């Protein structure tokens, strides 16, 4: 039950155009934490370019803006794929056929552990369809994955 809620939260949120910055809502410039913020310019740069996370596109800068809040959990506002840096990890895992990012994706889509092996290999075989070009967005990736699942006997039940 909890899993389904989780997946709904993740998927539901991913359909909206803009996700909140990872780290949670209400995360502003004056709100950075010791840990996760670093001293050197390169990291400062990472911090600057990651101020907002809109619609993720493949190849984007990854990472978070180093700010945490003590508010509610950030799941509600940001989807897995739309988070900076996740699409590239998922793409890598689909290309390889397994990995932590792919597991996280399957969990967030509600795929039971028995079906994950199959989920992984179906996505692996359809890599080119899921990532047709480098400008693909998280939303398009998700739509392709759902279309592939709909066409698969074993996975169709997760798309309802």
């Amino acid at each position: 039950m909890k899993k389904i809620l989780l997946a709904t939260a993740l998927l539901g949120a991913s359909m909206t155009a803009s996700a909140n910055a990872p780290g949670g809502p209400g995360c502003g410039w004056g709100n950075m934490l010791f840990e996760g913020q670093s001293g050197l310019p390169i990291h400062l740069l990472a911090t600057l370019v990651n101020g907002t996370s809109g619609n993720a596109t493949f190849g984007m800068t990854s990472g978070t803006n180093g700010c945490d809040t003590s508010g509610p959990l950030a799941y509600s506002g940001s989807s897995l794929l739309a988070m900076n840096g996740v699409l590239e990890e998922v793409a890598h895992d689909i290309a390889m056929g397994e990995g932590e990012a792919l597991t996280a994706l399957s969990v967030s889509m509600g795929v039971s552990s028995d079906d994950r092996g199959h989920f992984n290999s179906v996505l692996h075989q359809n890599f080119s369809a899921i990532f047709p070009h480098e400008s693909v967005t998280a939303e398009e990736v998700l739509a392709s994955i759902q279309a592939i699942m709909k066409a698969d006997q074993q996975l169709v039940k997760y798309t309802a």
Partner: protein
Amino acid sequence: MPLILIAPLAGLLFLFCLLPPMAQASVSVAELAESPRWQALMHVNRGATLRGRGRSYVTDENFFLAPDGRDNPAAELHASIAALARPGSESRCTYPARYRFLAEHLGWQEAEPFAHCEEYLEWRGQIPEGPIVLIFPAAYLNSPSSMFGHTLLRIDGEEEDGVWLSQAVNFGAQVDSSDNSIFYIYRGLAGGYPGYFSIVPYLTKIQDYAHLENRDMWEYTLALDDEERRWLVEHLWELRDIRFDYYFFDENCSFRLLELVEVARPGSRLLDDYRFAEVPVNTVRALDDAGLIEKRVYRPSKAVELDHLASQLSPSARRLARRLAADPSLATGEEFQEHTAEQQRLMAQTAYEFLRFRNRTRERDPQVARNSLAMLRLVNSLSSQVVAEAVPLREPEPPEDGHATKMVAAAYGQRGGDEFGEVQLRYTYHDLFDNSTGFLRGAQIEGINIRLRSTESSALKLERLDLVNIRSLAPRSTFVRPVSWFVNGGIERVQSGTAADRDYRPSYFIEGGPGLSWQWGSLTPFIFATFRAEHNHAYDPFVTGAAGASTGLLWHAGRGATLGVQGGGYYLTNDEYRHRAGATANLPLTRNNALRFDLERLAVRGDADTEFRISWRYFYD
């Protein structure tokens, strides 16, 4: 027979509970307030740190129900009983762990005491039910706040779901981004920053540490049972938006986590001893010693993963992978095609990880994105031809197996013909020659390192004091090009004065500079530029500047032994120049004992002394 006795007894108890709480509790409240769990829930300082003993560490008034709650746990207990006893009380939604404590001790029995707490129940439903894990992202020299590593907790879901969607519990200082570095360190030391707990998806922590900062992470599953985990999670809710003071040394991330574990398991004795500073690795050790660590998992950083991939390629294949990253069309060329499918896939994977490594922190570049995707297509298409299992990454020795953090040493030596004896005390933590087992190799952090020397003709005198001595050797390779750096400040005796009365005089100095370093097997060569300012009574100006360079070679000879040679020099603005050359060998005898040999040639304007030292180093605490 016993049943008959119990029934009226239970009835009596029930009646007892219906009495106004104050009346029935007046005897036991004081005792109850002294119980370890209540003290833990109140975050009372029971002597673990210097400031505010007997008071709560929480500085936020919102945390307390009694006006003097911070100083008086018994008054707070009274106030809590009054506020939480009534069914439907709003305060229950704020203090679920306190409620549980009182219910257990006062025999309150309600089936659903939080039924009216919608927000709390929603949050509680989102917190996974699995194990609690201590996370230790290893040292990161490029940030003053994570130099010794960091610790946080993680709350897991079901094991087969992996940990990406687990929740991370972090305690950190809220920093004003307009503060500059110096002010930031000062406020960190003096307690000028407020500290808060936060809960974020663990994934964002993996990204911060393993992907962006390239720090290895160690994950230690804690041996807490369901009941203990429930205490911890419920208490976390009580700490939402609650302010603590953040002190860089003692009341830091690690200390606060120990307090959480104390809530879960009061009497774990984690906070019994006074500490001047809480070093994150010692938190791991403390939990280990208390038998609280059940399992350990190593999570390599992206840099280590890239290195691991590259290490499976020949030097020429490595270079080809690098070119491939810039020009994917090479994949159809003869040079690429003559490799096995396995090597081809490794090259493509390496090239992808290299592109990500380089561009993770940069603005999106369409060309890079195109090449990255081309690499993944290659990986994907080659996968069907690869049958061999991936070579597993060799896990380094865990941080808790490293030497202790403080050190004392005794040395015998000679300079010129004169003999001397030395005692040394180093408050923290590791230098480049110390046994690197469990430490980040090439990362030196010394804080408060004192050497006192006695010669035949003079009593004990300060020979050297390093307030800070930090050196980062970051090896450059085909794929990564980091800059090394060092900074060192304190007092040292150096040759100074005019030729007629030249002597070793104390010099208050600060020096530092950028550098380069490489790794050839077990050899690490390095070069550094040196910029220096010193205050020395032998010179007229209050501060004398200097610039120079140094170079050296480290050899990790195996079994924790490290040997090295180095030399360097600098010119002072008053036309003096000093140079020194030396060799050092450090031989660990056990985890916490080592022998060290130093040979140094110290020179100023051609006047040179040779010094030899042999020291026994003992690490503790």
